[in-house]
């Protein structure tokens, strides 16, 4: 069963990871990816907008796809929305499995697909008052594309 959350509040990566192993002894590996807000080019903050309803649906679909492709004992996707300042975490994905390769591959799959398959949009706020919507990257499409089947 996947844990999916969209929230303004920060998350505790260690606690989320511990939750995937709590009370069970069949988890051999947990792979995690945390995405953080960088201070590139004078960015003062990122403002994340999403499509309530569709977001949870899209994330649940991405998690279900990972669970269908790899023998996972659990996975977690937490994505923050609202205003996030440099150094703060934005997104956490976790994949747990009996075996490390499944956990590592599923974790990379989850973050690659999330980048192109979930309705989030980022606006950059700069210290000089300018604002700019982040543009989608071809490299993200390419990263997601490598998981496309045959």
């Amino acid at each position, binding site marked *: 069963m996947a844990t999916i959350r969209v929230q303004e509040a920060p998350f505790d990566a260690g606690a989320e990871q511990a939750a995937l192993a709590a009370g069970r002894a069949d988890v051999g590996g947990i792979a995690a990816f945390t*995405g953080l807000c960088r201070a590139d080019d004078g960015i003062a903050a990122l403002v*994340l*907008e*999403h*499509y309530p*309803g*569709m977001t949870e*649906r*899209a994330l649940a679909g991405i998690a279900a796809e990972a669970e269908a492709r790899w023998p996972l004992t659990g996975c977690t996707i937490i*994505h923050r929305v609202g205003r996030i300042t440099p150094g703060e975490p*934005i*997104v956490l994905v976790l994949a747990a499995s009996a075996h490390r390769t499944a956990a590592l591959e599923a974790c990379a799959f989850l*973050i690659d697909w*999330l*980048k*192109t*398959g*979930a*309705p*989030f*949009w*980022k*606006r950059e706020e700069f210290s000089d008052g300018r604002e700019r*919507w*982040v*543009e*989608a*990257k071809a490299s*993200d499409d390419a990263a997601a594309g490598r998981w496309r089947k045959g």
Partner: protein
Amino acid sequence: MAMQILYFAWVRQKVGHGAETLEPPAEVTDVAGLMRWLAARSPGHAAAFAQPGQVRAAVNQEFCPPDHPVRPNDEVAFFPPVTGG
């Protein structure tokens, strides 16, 4: 019967609001047709849909290509390519 239309990110900013309930005429049958019809509603809508190739759509909360049909009671959303994560 009406459609619920949603806008996100700069599409929302250009249109000037995030949601509206509209009754497109019968000749609007797909996502691309709905975009052309919406573009004629106001200068804001026109700006939002000026480059239709930069706007993505979801019908009933699923990403859809421009030739996807739209029907009464559908929830149709327009937005830029996603940039989460």
